[in-house]
């Protein structure tokens, strides 16, 4: 009997385990779709509505502000969705539900469990960002769009999702469960407002110290690359700098994040 190994006992088992875990995550997301949409869309939707529509209608912003705001909000959605997808479940799963144990005991390397989380975060981040496109049309009437900017647009979103996932991995493995509230106040809010989603970075020259602060937030480079893709007429950081900084930030965040993941997964 031992000679007749079933065909599914081989190295492919590891990838099958990876796919099964991803399937589980997608299955849960699908079944909780309204909750997922509310979680990822509500915040950018209100920002878009208030800053893009309401303030514009009251003539409190200059014409064209909505056009430079919209790419910034896409960047925000991209980064924060990926981050939320990873950070909160990870804190809970390592902290008290211990749900992750069953996946850590699946026949695949521990790094695959982390990689699956990152891939899932990217998927959710893409879905959330793409949903923002029709939402933008609905609220603003029209959104800035350039087909020639598509490669940069996709690259920006992808790297944005990875940066968010890197933050999520880091936060999810560093933050103690009892400190989960601090994640909101100390990490989310500063990230949200220093990521140049509501203003273009070069225009901050008049507020030099804040320009320096925002330069330290990787989300800034996501916002700027998306502006470069969709509204290149607005002054922005050159795309190659954005992509380079993002790749560097991703390398750092992922290295530390995966290390943290291993520390929590294996004693």
């Amino acid at each position: 009997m031992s000679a007749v190994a079933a065909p599914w006992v081989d190295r492919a088992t590891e990838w099958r385990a990876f796919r099964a875990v991803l399937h589980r995550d997608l299955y849960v997301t699908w079944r909780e779709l309204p909750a997922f949409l509310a979680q990822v869309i509500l915040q950018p939707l209100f920002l878009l509505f208030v800053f893009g529509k309401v303030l514009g209608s009251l003539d409190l912003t200059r014409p064209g502000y909505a056009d430079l705001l919209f790419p910034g909000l896409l960047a925000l959605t991209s980064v924060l969705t990926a981050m939320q997808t990873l950070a909160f479940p990870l804190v809970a799963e390592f902290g008290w539900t211990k749900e992750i144990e069953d996946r850590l005991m699946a026949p695949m390397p521990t790094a695959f469990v982390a990689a699956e989380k990152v891939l899932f975060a990217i998927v959710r981040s893409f879905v959330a960002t793409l949903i923002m496109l029709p939402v933008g049309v609905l609220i603003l009437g029209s959104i800035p769009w350039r087909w020639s900017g598509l490669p940069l647009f996709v690259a920006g979103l992808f790297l944005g999702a990875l940066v968010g996932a890197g933050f999520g991995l880091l936060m999810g493995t560093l933050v103690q469960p009892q400190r989960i509230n601090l994640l909101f106040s100390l990490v989310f809010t500063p990230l949200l407002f220093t990521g140049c989603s509501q203003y273009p970075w070069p225009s901050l020259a008049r507020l030099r110290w804040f320009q320096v602060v925002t330069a330290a937030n990787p989300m800034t480079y996501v916002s700027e690359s998306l502006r470069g893709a969709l509204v290149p007429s607005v002054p922005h950081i050159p795309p190659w700098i954005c992509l380079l900084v993002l790749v560097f930030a991703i390398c750092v965040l992922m290295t530390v994040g995966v290390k943290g993941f291993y520390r929590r997964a294996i004693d």
Partner: protein
Amino acid sequence: MTRPRGGFLRTAVDTEKGTPLRNDAGRRGCHGQPRLGDEVAEESGDRLAALDRASRERIRVPNVHPRPYDFEMSGELPTDGPAVEVVDLVKRYPKSPVNAVDGVSFSVPAGEVFGLLGPNGAGKTTTVGMLTTRVRPSDGHALVGGVDVVGDPVGARKQVAVVPQRSNLDRSISIRDNLVFHAAYHGVPARERLERADELLDQFGLLDRSGDKPDFFSGGQSQRVMIARALMHAPRVLFLDEPTTGLDPAARLFVWDRLRELRESDVTLILTTHDMDEAALLADRVAIMDHGRLLALDTPEALIDSLEGEGTLELAADLPADGAVLEALAGLSGVAHVEPVQMHTENGEAPPPADSQPLRVRLYLTGDAALLVAPAAAVLSEHGLALQDVKLGTPTLEDVFIDLTGRTLR
């Protein structure tokens, strides 16, 4: 502080529980087991069999045996050799001055039920953690199903399943989905995993709740779901960490029944417990652990037999007695030690002085307790006392632990 080995527990239990004297009488109370009819027979005979009888009377459990798996998990692996082999395993945590596991070695043949018995903090869970790839050993090595847990953790994970102490069920999905996805992680074919999930849910009495999410389950139910989940991928070795800690008596008996059924299958069971009843009832062999070290390893019977005393004999007479009686009893051949037993009053008042109460003594014996009943009764009658009550007892695994460490398990 030094105290006579063994004697401490016995007196302590007597005083605390106020029950007639045998140390395991107090424990039975803890487990909520009914006092069973024929006491002498029960005390001297197979207490566990009686426990089992009681459990089956109280809960009707269908005796289902898992059908053989349609799929073969371990075809590529050696089928002979021990299921688990541990050599000089050490776990040292960075900030701890002592080793959590300190040079443990043992080997578990396939199909055995192996119990790791010890108090909390003995290193049982850490040992299981290392065998299940979740804790990295500091030294030594461990093989599960012939696979090195450090060298090939993925291969090792294919071999094992873990039922942890606390629920780690996936709360976002139903218990049926918990089983099905677990099997999918392990690559069980789709049709097989659906069939098997229903089958196991049925065996574990959960079929009617298969659509519910784990949040609505009690501790005992979660435990059952986790054992069912663990069996989904036909593991070679199933680790159970304190499988019945915190469960009510009925749930505990149900889990015990399921685990005993698993003995009939090929799966090797490794269970950690601090409950000697559980170890004695379920395990073929028991390893006693304390402070990260393995103190003894043998069948429960052999461990108990290794104790000097073969049993205890408890006598109650109709009248108070003086020291002369005790001396005469101690002089009987086969008596190692005599200890007067003090009865507690029901309402917690201080007991009357021992010499004003009818005599009650426990004899610790080196030989068979039954053979000493008549000589002891003769001694009593020589001193003008009539024998009123007799209890024969056998030592338990807890006595073995006390003998090895001088401490109780709890």
